């Protein structure tokens, strides 16, 4: 057994046969996991493989139904997160729990059991953060800080409690490549000091780069362990999925680009709230046959840009053109009738209504697009059911019973559904925000291929994404959004990660201001 060779004097955490059941679903099935001191340990798996369940048991927010956890050789029961922190287990969440209106030091004080005097805490924050290469100004207000810095606050908050194990849930999903590099340096420094890191990520390149050991979960079970340095991203991916992942083919490499189908012309919009981003004279033209991707770190105006193109955020008439027709102040329904289709980032609550059945969720975006879903003011249930069955088959949407409520689907399946609902219309213009966010490798490949195929059939596809791997995989041209400015879209073959990273970190802004 691999595990025995790894166990020894320096075992920090040893989980044996951890089991957790939710109703009929076995989320974790006798999971064994050993984390050594000073090790960056990757936890890999598709969505729903049981990663979050496992770390929540380590962090005390879930109680295991079976099995035991040994911490430095002692059997422990971790009843709540405070107990975990006391043992020396810290966690940095994917979604930050920070109060935007408060300062850095206030936010950290709120999370500490004994914060002490604010001025002393501020000094400690400054020294710890500089020490680990994560400089923070304790008096900054969180609302003014970019996401990368906000993550630093969470990490520093963790470090102040001198943990021996830090759990990180997809830490780089919100960072630019340069910011991610900085984070990796910090993690390596921590590891060299003997602190262990349990690292959850979907990005196999970075796992391969920084992790010493990887445990792969599938359907709640440990399916394999490996040293990522000896693997390639492709072999890691196939271990996660349990099969070879179909590679996405861009087809005829250079698409024959046709007429302009979507045009953005000096698109500007004020920020709707203090925490929203203003759009600053964004211009972009999408031709028939091409996929254009907009890269950028979360919260740089992607949502606002999507809303302006879809019509949920009305702008001046000439700022948006679909197939030559100005429509900046037209409704989303009008734009859909022009054969445009939209897939927002948030699946539940924006792209779909959680409490409505899938068939009803089809009516949501297609009630006015000539699908015969409505007649004389009445909704045709039969037609909606037929469409639901068709989309379910076409896009392999898996569900426990027929036509369930949207909220009961897993993230990946719901994403296949909301993307499929629009692709099924064969739209002339498709705008997708984060097409494969939180989707497992198999489903992501399916969705990406479908986007490329749609473009090659003569449509224009705009993909807004934070996933650079995805962007380089499918885009013909790439633009970068930063603080509401958009860089010029350049052919993908002229771009590389470093250049995109620089544009993300403010280059796009500079370019936009000059233009």
């Amino acid at each position, binding site marked *: 057994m691999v595990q025995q060779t790894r166990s020894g004097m320096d075992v920090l955490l040893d989980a044996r046969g951890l089991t957790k059941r939710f109703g009929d679903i076995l989320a974790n099935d006798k999971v064994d996991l050993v984390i050594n001191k000073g090790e960056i340990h990757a936890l890999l798996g598709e969505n729903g493989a049981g990663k979050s369940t496992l770390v929540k048991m380590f962090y005390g927010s879930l*109680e*295991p139904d079976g099995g035991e956890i040994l911490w430095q050789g002692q059997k422990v029961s971790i009843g709540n997160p405070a107990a975990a922190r006391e043992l020396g287990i810290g966690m940095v969440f994917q979604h930050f729990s920070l109060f935007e209106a408060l300062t850095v030091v206030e936010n950290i004080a709120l999370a500490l059991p004994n914060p002490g005097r604010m001025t002393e805490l501020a000094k400690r924050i400054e020294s710890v953060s500089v020490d680990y290469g994560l400089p923070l100004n304790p008096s900054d207000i969180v609302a003014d800080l970019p996401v990368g810095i906000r993550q630093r606050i969470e990490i520093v908050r963790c470090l102040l409690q001198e943990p021996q194990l830090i759990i990180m849930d997809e830490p780089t999903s919100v960072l630019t490549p340069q910011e991610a590099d900085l984070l990796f340096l910090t993690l390596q420094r921590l590891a060299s000091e003997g602190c262990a890191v349990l690292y959850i990520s979907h990005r196999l390149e970075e796992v391969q780069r920084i992790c010493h050991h990887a445990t792969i979960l599938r359907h709640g079970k440990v399916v394999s362990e490996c040293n990522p340095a000896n693997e390639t991203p492709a072999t890691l991916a196939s271990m996660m999925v349990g099969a070879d992942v179909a590679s996405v083919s861009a087809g005829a490499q250079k698409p024959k680009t046709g007429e302009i189908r979507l045009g953005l012309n000096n698109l500007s919009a004020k920020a709707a709230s203090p925490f929203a981003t203003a759009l600053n004279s964004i211009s972009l033209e999408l031709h028939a046959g091409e996929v254009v991707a907009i890269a950028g770190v979360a919260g740089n105006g992607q949502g606002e840009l999507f809303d302006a193109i879809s019509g949920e955020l009305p702008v001046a008439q000439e700022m948006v053109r679909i197939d030559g027709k100005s429509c900046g102040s037209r409704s*989303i329904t009008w734009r859909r009738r022009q054969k445009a289709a939209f897939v927002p980032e948030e699946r539940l609550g924006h*792209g779909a209504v959680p409490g409505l059945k899938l068939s009803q969720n089809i009516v*949501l975006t297609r*009630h006015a697009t000539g699908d015969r879903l409505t007649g004389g003011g009445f909704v045709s249930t039969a037609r909606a059911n037929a469409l639901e069955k068709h989309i379910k088959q076409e896009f392999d949407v898996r569900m426990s019973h027929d036509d369930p409520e949207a909220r009961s689907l897993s993230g990946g399946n719901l994403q296949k559904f909301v993307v499929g609902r629009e692709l099924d219309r064969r739209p002339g213009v498709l705008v997708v925000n984060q097409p494969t966010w939180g989707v497992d490798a198999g489903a992501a490949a399916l969705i990406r291929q479908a986007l490329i195929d749609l473009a090659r059939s003569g449509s224009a596809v705009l993909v807004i994404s934070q996933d650079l791997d995805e962007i380089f995989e499918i885009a013909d041209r790439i633009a970068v959004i930063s603080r509401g400015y958009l860089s010029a879209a350049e052919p993908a073959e002229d771009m590389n990660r470093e250049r995109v990273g620089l544009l993300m970190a403010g280059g796009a802004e500079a370019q936009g201001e000059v233009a």
Partner: protein
Amino acid sequence: MRLELVKRKERSQKMALLSPIIAIGLTALAAALIFAISGHNPLVGLYKFFVEPLTQEWSLQATIAKATPLVLIGCGLAVCYLSNNWNIGAEGQFVVGALFGSALPILLPEFESGATLPLMLIFGAVGGALWALIPAVLKNWFNTNEILTSLMLVYVASLALDYLVRGPWRDPDGYNFPESRMFSDAATVPDVFGGAMSLSTPITIVIALILAVVLAKTLKGFEIRVMGESPRAGSFAGFSAKRLTLFSFALAGGLAGLAGTMEVSGGLNQLLPTISPGYGFTAIIVAFLGRLNPIGIIIAGFVLALSYIGGEAVQSAMGVSNKIASVIQGLLLFFVLACDTLILYRIRFVSHHAPAGEASHV
């Protein structure tokens, strides 16, 4: 032992139907407790309150007469609540509707024709709708909280009614009593079924059935449900939240106003300082007890009307204050809302001990 709420994956259809029944059961238990604490036989109390009114024809008719305005108002409120518009001011809309509807027979008592009653009903609906549009417009333009504005307008409406029946609209031949002149036959809602009930009841049932179809089958009904559950998804679907706010308030106010007019021109035949025993507020309970579904509201309206009649019955038979009716109505709403938790959650009993796997090691 402790209780844990576990989220269900989907709404439980079974619980959606069972929840109001459980709530009624719990309300009966609580009512029995109140009877017992106040020194009465709880079983007799429950019988007099909930059962006896159903056994006699006159009290059954009185119950239906009281249920009618509750159902009509409740249907309108259901549209508001389904679409996330918290109209708490149906009582005021009821009163203003009654004022608008009464204007014709009071100011032009000689105008007696076949058009009198239909015109009154239309005026009543328009009046209630206009009154309800005030909080809707304030919400859309100034982002005010419609709960507060609609509620406060109830008191404005009641005071306006009070002023009118004591002042300009007082009956000149009424010996200075605070009441308007009596309405003529042409201004009275006719009786049907051999005088057993007024035409208001069949009108109400037809309106409830139409609304049931609209909500379940039409795009408008779809829009209402989507907007209530997820406004962001609603605007993604191309629906306008502001337009729907105006629509749902106008509809609820219109139906409440219609109910107000039918009440004064049906049972009372004149305006009085108090024309409603709180129908507009009780209808809120009716709407929720009826699952915000017009068919359910017909049943719920009957149950709540029973509490008015039952309150009077226990007062006359046992000397219990008829305020017991309001207490029981309040308890019912409380239990319905609490039981509705079970639609999306189920209860799990968790013992204090650690899970079995670990306990065996200790």
